[in-house]
């Protein structure tokens, strides 16, 4: 009814056009604001060295690809593969550990379940700062993991992170129990139910955890700084960006912001690709976190 009236009245229509254009004006204006850091990151990476002696501008005098050539060394490739290794193994651990535990908590009934769940929820709230220093001592002195990448992914295979367990459990509780009851009547074992019925159904939340976990590990700085800072062979990209191209760099020519920003751009590209690819799953996952978290 209202739409009919709107179409008939020219003044209301003009008002609507004005409203729509104002809306788009502000949408675009804020977009420019939010894109500005990315623009600056990219533009700075293409700026020739000479512009950093004074005379930076919002548009480089010439597009200079030297920074990218400069950072593309054997060491960079090594850091890149270290980072990939950590991310893939960590994410694999998150999916394995959290799905396994969440299945037991959501779908099975066993002695000690409530105690285990209470422990997991307690650990969610335990600040990581309390654990990080003693963990470093444990890794170094007891496991002999000093300077290795193991601390960055092995713990994930044993449980997969308490918050992740909680999220997967909440998601699994949404699956009707009639599914596994029917399957067990047909003679399926508990593991078959887990593998063939429950796991495919919780794929959305696992994809969400995998993608956000990958991006989080890819950009993580604190973890590598604590565990591999003094083992240059095992640096990840974040750490290399900070030590090799960032403030602590000894070599003056490498210290220029264009190579820092070039590393930043190279680091950002996989994240943007992943985000673009799994955008729908990420949004759905966030929505699930909100409802259940």
């Amino acid at each position: 009814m209202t739409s009919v009236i709107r179409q008939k009245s020219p003044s209301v229509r003009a008002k609507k056009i004005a409203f729509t254009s104002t809306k788009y004006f502000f949408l675009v204006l804020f977009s420019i604001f939010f894109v500005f850091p990315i623009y600056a990151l990219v533009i700075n990476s293409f700026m020739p060295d000479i512009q950093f002696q004074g005379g930076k501008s919002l548009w480089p005098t010439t597009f200079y690809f030297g920074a990218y050539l400069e950072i593309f060394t054997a060491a960079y490739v090594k850091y890149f593969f270290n980072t990939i290794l950590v991310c893939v193994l960590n994410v694999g651990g998150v999916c394995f550990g959290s799905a396994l535990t969440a299945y037991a908590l959501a779908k099975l009934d066993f002695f000690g379940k409530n105690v285990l769940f209470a422990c997991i929820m307690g650990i969610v709230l335990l600040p990581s700062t309390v654990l990080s220093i003693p963990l470093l001592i444990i890794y170094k002195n007891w496991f002999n993991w000093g300077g290795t990448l193991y601390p960055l992914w092995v713990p994930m295979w044993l449980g997969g992170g308490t918050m992740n367990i909680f999220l997967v459990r909440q998601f699994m509780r949404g699956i009707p129990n009639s599914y596994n009851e029917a399957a067990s009547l047909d003679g399926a074992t508990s593991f078959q139910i887990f593998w063939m019925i429950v796991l495919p159904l919780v794929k959305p939340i696992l994809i969400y955890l995998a993608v956000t976990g990958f991006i989080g590990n890819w950009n993580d700085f604190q973890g590598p700084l604590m565990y591999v800072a003094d083992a240059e062979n095992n640096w990840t990209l974040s750490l290399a960006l900070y030590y090799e191209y960032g403030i602590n760099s000894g070599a003056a020519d490498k210290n220029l912001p264009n190579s820092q920003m070039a590393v930043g751009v190279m680091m950002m590209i996989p994240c943007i690709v992943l985000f673009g690819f799994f955008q729908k799953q990420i949004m759905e996952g966030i929505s699930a976190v909100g409802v259940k978290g």
Partner: protein
Amino acid sequence: MKGVFSKYYTPEGKFSFKILVKKNWVAWTYCIPVVLGILIFTIMPVVTSLVYAFHDYDPTIPADLGNQLSNAGFQHFIKIFTWGKGGLLTDVLWSLFITFRYVIISLTLQIVGSYCVALFLNQQTKGIQAFRIVYYLPNLIPAVAGTLLWKEMMATDGYFNIILESVGLPAFDFYRNKATAMPTLIFTGIFSWGGTAVMWLAQMQNVPKEMYESANLDGANYFHKTFKITIPMTTSMLFYIVVTSIIGGIQSFSNVYPLLELSEEFRFIVVMIYQYAFEPDVRNSLSMACALSWVLFVIIAILTATIFKTSKWVYYGEEV
């Protein structure tokens, strides 16, 4: 006690360990990894940390001599709570003060700001999906790259000073100046609002459409609907964001540690703990770091408990 175990009694009425294992071993198998994980990566470090907090640790003595640890009693805690010379209370309080000031200001701004952004993005217009992605993009800048980028942009010859100078204002060293260091850090936080806005948006889209329809019938305008429907219906996300942001914000590290060389204003509490643990020139005392992290733990625990106790306003949907 008998109630819990009654399932595991033999027909004769005696508790049987065999039946307990038989009925539970499958489920227990699934839990082996997580139990091991909790024992090794949570319980063990918690105990180690407590032991270290009450001992003096000397890493220069080889571990096989076994005397790296010497009993210190409450010495470290006494030192933390001693005012003035020889004590750390002034340092710790200052560090806590700047940390909390940052958390309170940035969190308040973030919640209000990102909610406005989300309300703005929560409309049905052509191309809105693209705008949502664009607003989210700054979150994908790697943390270290972002910090280096802001350092670069806020430097005396950076973009912000180019803009200032073009208007005829003098150049300004945003991060090094004591008065502007913290506001600059908070300003750079604005660019992560898109990420929070996406979380709000997800929740806003779960609000039943019928609510707005019946509100429309009652003649409610946009502000009525926002304040009476949208905001109350998204309180569970607000609770989640408040809890995670407070805990995460107090433990800020990656976004401030690379800035420390520019200003003492960035010596947040976790940075201080890290320095005690790892930077020999500050004072290599792992024990003090452990003691400090326990003080921080108590503070965070009290805060979290208070938030959970006062969370009656949170709406979790009908079924819960």
